[in-house]
């Protein structure tokens, strides 16, 4: 299904190019350039009082193409015991909320949002899985194995940070090429989407939000390509680890947990994450 959508989009791009409205790549992606070209062409037809023919109908359909893909969300930590390199909990918020509870809640919200997007867009089928459904811990390898077992296109591990009660910011981490990442460019693109989306969502509620950026020099067990089986897979899983914020900072705790709008902020973060994942799936469809 995904291939046919790409073909339709390519056809639309070729049609628009032939009519002199589009000068971009014939890549099957439907970015701003293609949308603008289609809008301009539609305006031209309306102005000329021409009927949109079958060829143009194909163009119209392609602008609402479906999205397919498998997404695995990994709520960091969980349970009571350390297992396979995964601690039950690392950060605790200023008011005492545990990171493991926050990661699980955010993963559930992102899944809900992805399911909503999938049902709302015709011909879409986004499969979403969580590495853990409740308060239990999985080793880092086992978390990556869930992504491998589900043949995930995208794997996002969700964490919150803690340090000295003052440092804050959002950062997204990927495995470095030096540590065996076989698809660092794709991981980096996913990480950039997630990072910019989540940061913008937080900034929208808090001017003090800080963008710590994407860090591509990391050695993180849950992102190891051998565990994701990327070196042997034809279709490599794109993976990153999001550190939403430093929850041991009082103002961050207020933003995400104790403040009046905390629930809305968390929901907006989830929406931003879902949107970033959808964009990544679209870019690879």
């Amino acid at each position, binding site marked *: 299904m995904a291939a046919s959508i790409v073909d339709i989009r390519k056809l639309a791009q070729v049609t628009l190019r032939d009519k002199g409205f589009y000068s971009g790549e014939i890549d099957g992606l439907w970015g701003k350039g293609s949308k603008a070209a289609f809008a301009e062409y539609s305006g031209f037809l309306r102005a000329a009082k021409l009927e949109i023919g079958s060829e143009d109908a194909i163009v119209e359909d392609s602008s609402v193409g479906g999205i397919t893909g498998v997404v695995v969300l990994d709520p*960091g930590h969980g349970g009571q015991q350390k297992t396979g390199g995964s601690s039950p*909990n690392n950060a605790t918020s200023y008011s005492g909320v545990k990171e493991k509870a926050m990661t699980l809640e955010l993963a559930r919200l992102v899944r809900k949002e992805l399911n909503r997007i999938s049902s709302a867009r015709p011909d879409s089928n986004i499969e979403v899985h969580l590495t853990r459904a409740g308060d239990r811990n999985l080793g*880092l390898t086992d978390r990556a194995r869930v992504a491998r077992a589900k043949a995930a296109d995208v794997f996002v591990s969700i964490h919150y940070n803690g340090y000295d009660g003052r440092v804050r910011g959002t950062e997204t*981490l990927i495995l470095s090429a030096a540590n065996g990442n076989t698809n660092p460019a794709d991981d980096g693109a996913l990480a950039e989407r997630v990072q910019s989306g989540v940061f913008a969502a937080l900034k929208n509620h808090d001017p003090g939000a800080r963008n710590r950026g994407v*860090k591509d020099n*990391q*050695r993180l*067990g*849950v992102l190891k390509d051998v565990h994701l089986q990327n070196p042997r897979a034809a279709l490599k899983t794109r993976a990153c680890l999001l*550190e939403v914020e430093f929850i041991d900072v009082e103002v961050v705790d207020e933003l995400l947990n104790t403040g009046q709008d905390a629930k809305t902020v968390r929901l907006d973060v989830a929406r931003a994450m879902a949107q970033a994942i959808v964009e990544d799936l679209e870019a690879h469809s």
Partner: protein
Amino acid sequence: MSATQGRKISTLYSCLAFAMLACCPAILSAQDALAPYVSVWAQLNPEVFETVDSPGSLLGEFRAAAKAGDDQTARKDWQRFVDDFDPQDGFFEDGMHARFVEWAKMELVRLQHRASGDLAAERAQIAIMRQQAERD
């Protein structure tokens, strides 16, 4: 000028010289090195002494090590922290895990400099750690 006036001026100059030295970061670092051990983390985050211990957790063990009051205890506590939390395969769990293990190793390097009496190296190590904290 009387002898009393001379002593007053001399005292004034001494105080002035002391104040200038106290403002010089290099001298401050030297004092750090000579003083009884206080982890750089605790120097930067004195509130760590007020925190309640939560043994077994990354943060709890880190804070416990950061509270050590002498070189021997500090070496033992930081080493235990590294033994417990530095992953054997070198791959971390998350950003927090990587930061704390890196910090513990820097404290151990500093303690090594103290043990060998290399105060200049310790000063350099302290400066690196403070820069690291500022970057974070």
